[in-house]
């Protein structure tokens, strides 16, 4: 479904990515791991169009997307959450998701129809599916950190993606919230047939849900393989246990 081929990205002289490769098959859950500064977030920003690669191709559903702007990439079927809680703080929880649904349905530019009556069913359905059904009228900025992260996933779901990208979905969460998020991700993958690409520091989570793991270091792909193989791999052990820059 998604294929990242030898992608590089430079910031001035610094190579944030140099030859990263990634394959995300349809319907799978793929994790990207690597020490801080390995280039995971940069990779995600390239896939969703926030950044443009200096070299390489990104192919989604058989089509090169590396030159497209973020909003077009979203309409092709890729949605994402961000590393830091990234919601619309002055809108209500309901509106946060509704804006996303409106955008997906191509109704963002409608000028004279009250938004409050539009796509209520679709929005409510998403909020309930992530467990925020009762918080709809609160301002998003007043939610707890964990709920804001969940809301982020709900916003991403609003664009009915085929591929959902999650940047450290459990960062900063309590153990209970982490467990709940883990269940949520599994459930979403099952019930909506979503393909999921995520990165995560917590190795327990990675090995619990990922079907394929891509390991990065210094902006390079070391390998991509099923979890068991990754666990056995010497190079990965060195990268993590050798403490080069972890």
């Amino acid at each position, binding site marked *: 479904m998604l294929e990242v081929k030898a992608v590089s990205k430079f910031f001035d002289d610094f190579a944030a990515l140099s030859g990263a490769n990634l394959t995300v098959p349809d319907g799978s859950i793929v994790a990207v791991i690597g020490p801080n500064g390995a280039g995971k977030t940069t990779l995600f920003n390239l896939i*969703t*169009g*926030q950044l443009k690669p200096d070299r390489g191709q990104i192919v989604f559903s058989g089509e090169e997307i590396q030159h497209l*702007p*973020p*909003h*077009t990439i*979203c*309409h092709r079927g890729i*949605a*994402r959450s*961000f590393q830091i809680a*990234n*919601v*619309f*703080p*002055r*809108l209500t929880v309901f*509106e*946060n998701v*509704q*804006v*996303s649904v*409106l*955008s*997906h349905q191509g*109704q*963002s*530019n*409608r*000028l*004279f*129809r*009250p*938004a*409050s009556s*539009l796509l209520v069913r679709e929005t409510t359905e998403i909020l309930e599916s992530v467990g925020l059904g009762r918080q709809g009228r609160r301002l998003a900025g007043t939610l707890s950190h964990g709920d804001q992260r969940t809301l982020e996933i709900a*916003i*991403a779901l*609003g*664009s009915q993606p085929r591929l959902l990208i999650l940047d450290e979905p459990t960062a900063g969460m309590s153990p209970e919230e982490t467990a709940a998020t883990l269940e949520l991700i599994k459930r979403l993958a099952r019930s909506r047939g979503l393909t999921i690409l995520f990165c995560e520091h917590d190795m327990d989570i990675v090995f619990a849900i990922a079907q394929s793991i891509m390991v990065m270091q210094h902006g390079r792909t070391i390998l991509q393989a099923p979890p068991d193989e990754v666990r056995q791999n010497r190079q990965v052990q060195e990268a993590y246990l050798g403490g080069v820059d972890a």
Partner: protein
Amino acid sequence: MALFIVVVLLLPIFAPSFYTYVFALVMVNGLLAMSLNLVLGYGGLYQFHHGVFYGIGAYAIALILTKSPVPWWLAFIAAPIIAALFGLVIGWICIRSTQLYFGMLQISLGSLVWIITSRWYDFTGGDNGINNIPMPSFLTSGKEIYYFILAVLAISIAVMYRVVKSPFGATLQAIRDNPQRCEAIGVNVRHHQLIAIVIASFFAGVAGVLYVGLERSVFPDMLFWVLSLEVFVMCLLGGWFTFAGPLVGAGIIVILRTFVSIYTEYWTMIEGIILILLIFFLPQGVVGFALGRVGRKAQAAEETVQVSERGAKV
């Protein structure tokens, strides 16, 4: 509220014409401030030179009425559209940048319009502006123009309210809160901001037309950056996260300016002091503050209801 509406409707009948005039001025400035707030409060854009579109609307109708045979009603429609076209061009250039650069770019483009207007004596009258602009016969007395302004303001407010509450408005507020996130949910942020600027400059143009109706003259200072910042202050004073706030802010500023100026020539100092007090003590604005209090009370009431319900269950 109902009483206030009655007063506004009947004002020209019982009040001296000076008060009618001041209140008409409040409405013109209020419309200008509300149009700015579409992009400032709802859109989060640093629209530093909104006054340009107001001035362009005013100059457009003044020039059409004094220099062309175009009928008056067409002029009234054309002028805001011309302002909106300028909004399209200036906005299109500015949205390539964000925040402070957006604002500075707008000031430079606006300054170009201002300096050309103030120098082009043959066409715009230069520093002298244009005076004695002829008005259609049904808009000659103070009373008539008052009701005309009131009607146009009411229609404009209704339209702007619908825009704010529409999917477009909701998306615009989402862009204000978080443009990057908005791109990632498939919103073409710049396109959206540009439409907002065009709508806002259209209504600024309407305000400019109303000003000409009231004063029958235009002058280059309407395009100068100081006026734009004063409109900014009106929005802040009323509260830029509220819909009606800028109207209230404009009312306070215009009324204070009118009556304080009778007693002292140092109105700008008083305006500056008000602004600094606002920044330090009331950054959410008058209406924002009032709504906040009402909201807290409502919340407190809701909580007590919940508590008593629980109490009943126990």
